[in-house]
């Protein structure tokens, strides 16, 4: 379900946000890299959900506790506050109903960690401005007609959604094109232009 081929620098940031021995659900866990890292380095009790059967089978053969499932359809089966953290990494933009998904994350987990590509990044803006076509960049490599990313948003948009559903932002991190963290002192407007990816720690 992780639909970006880009190097997953965001995973390190996500991992830093998680306390050792926590209960973690990784929604869209892909091949299980984050879960495996969290299990070995932070001794978490990790579970995963992944849309692609190939990803699931790979995870299970690696000994991870992962089920095949769809964030839009299957999150409703999890009980309230069953996890300390629910991670949704590079997947929000591929869901049919991001608002409902985010609602579920905050219901299932004490905290939700959401990372997504920022559609407000200057490279995206420039591409649309100069070519007049939907941006295809190194990190967003799909054409408009075959992309699984159907609900792109900017960092600004995401903050708007958080306010709307009453999610409190505990911390936020933006990464630039080289995967470097952008200083926290910078204003949102700066993040929204220079952040290529954003990682939010949310709580309700």
């Amino acid at each position, binding site marked *: 379900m992780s639909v970006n081929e880009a190097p997953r620098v965001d995973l390190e940031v996500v991992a830093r946000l998680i306390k050792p021995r926590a209960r973690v659900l990784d929604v869209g866990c892909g091949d299980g890299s984050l879960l495996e890292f969290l299990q070995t380095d932070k001794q978490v009790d990790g579970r995963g959900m992944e849309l692609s059967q190939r990803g699931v089978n790979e995870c*299970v053969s690696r000994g991870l506790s992962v089920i095949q499932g769809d964030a839009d359809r299957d999150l409703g089966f999890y009980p309230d506050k069953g996890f300390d953290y629910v991670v949704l990494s590079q997947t929000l933009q591929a869901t049919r109903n991001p608002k409902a998904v985010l609602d579920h994350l905050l219901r299932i987990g004490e905290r939700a960690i959401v990372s997504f590509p920022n559609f407000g990044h200057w490279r995206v803006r420039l591409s649309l401005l100069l070519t007049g076509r939907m941006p295809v960049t190194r990190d967003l490599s799909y054409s408009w007609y075959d992309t699984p990313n159907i609900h792109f948003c900017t960092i600004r948009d995401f903050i708007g959604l958080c306010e709307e559903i009453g999610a409190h932002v505990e911390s936020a991190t933006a990464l630039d094109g080289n995967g470097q963290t952008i200083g926290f002192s910078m204003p949102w407007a700066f993040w929204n232009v220079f952040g290529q990816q954003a990682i939010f720690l949310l709580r309700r």
Partner: protein
Amino acid sequence: MVAVTRRRKLNEADDPSSPVLRFEPGKPLNLDAGTLLSPFQLAYQTYGELNAARSNAILVCHALTGDQHVANTHPVTGKPGWWDVLIGPGKIIDTRRFFVICSNVIGGCLGSTGPASTNPATGKPYGLDLPVITIRDMVRAQSMLIDHFGIDRLFCVLGGSMGGMQVLEWASSHSERVFCALPIATGARHSSQNIAFHEVGRQAVMADPEWHGGKYFEVGRRPEKGLAVARMAAHITYLSEAALHRKFGRNLQDRDRLTFGFDADFQIESYLRHQGITFVDRFDANSYLYMTRSMDYFDLAADHGGRLAEAFRNSQTRFCLVSFTSDWLFPTSESREIVHALNAAGASVSFVEIETDRGHDAFLLDEPELFAAINGFLRSAARARGLDDGP
């Protein structure tokens, strides 16, 4: 040769070639039917050695027409064990590291008490005097066998189809005794369609005049035709349309043209007839009635107030479910329902759906993805249990 096989078969019911655990009158089996079965016996096979901590035991639960001969040559058919591809020294379930137990279920016909066993009250085979057996009864009997080995907690319970139902029952009613559970190609209940197919099979057996109201042994006969037809119908449900067509198509059997008669013109007819005929050599017709009934009666959610998640409340067991894309007897949706219930119960669960055209029977075959999933799941569970997780 046939006569020898038959004698062997009758002997297997009372005095099998496997080790037998006999429960004397002081140790009855409580049946869901509301009666006590006593005395009764369980025939079983074991492979490998139980470690000093008694923590390396794996219980294998067999399917409808399976038996305890999971990884050794079958005493009646002379064929390899039914899960020989998976279990043995150096195999995925490595008997050099694990102690593997497989017992013939209660109601079976290979040495555990079943309708072909001698009823001590009459000196004749039970026939239909044996109470109807449920999946829960089978598991209750197995737990008495596990007690006998002095094992508090099994490392793993696994099985496919009816075996998978037993796995679910184990994980539900004896959760604290199951470290990890591997139910394959199964469901938490038998669907209406599945009950329907079983009913066709039972009616075929009972319509055979040689069935004699279930007392065929007493008159020295056996309802072979009826049982063979039951097996033929059932066998179709174990395969997929795609696999049947790939294997047989409309190919003719040893002939160039249609005979305009009712011989086995088509290869598929010949194949099914063969399946039916070979089955009756190794299986008891009444036992077939009991086995199919036990599956029909299984409904784990109904046993827990209609909520499947309640069956797994507070479960510490680690689960891995497996389904196959072309299995229409226990389709993926059945496994997914269990997965959702386990999620709702907060249990640890993995779920793998394997792409194959080999239908329900895929769980018995050499399926590399199935083996990879079982291997990965067991390794990580072994690590968590503090066992050697293998090379």
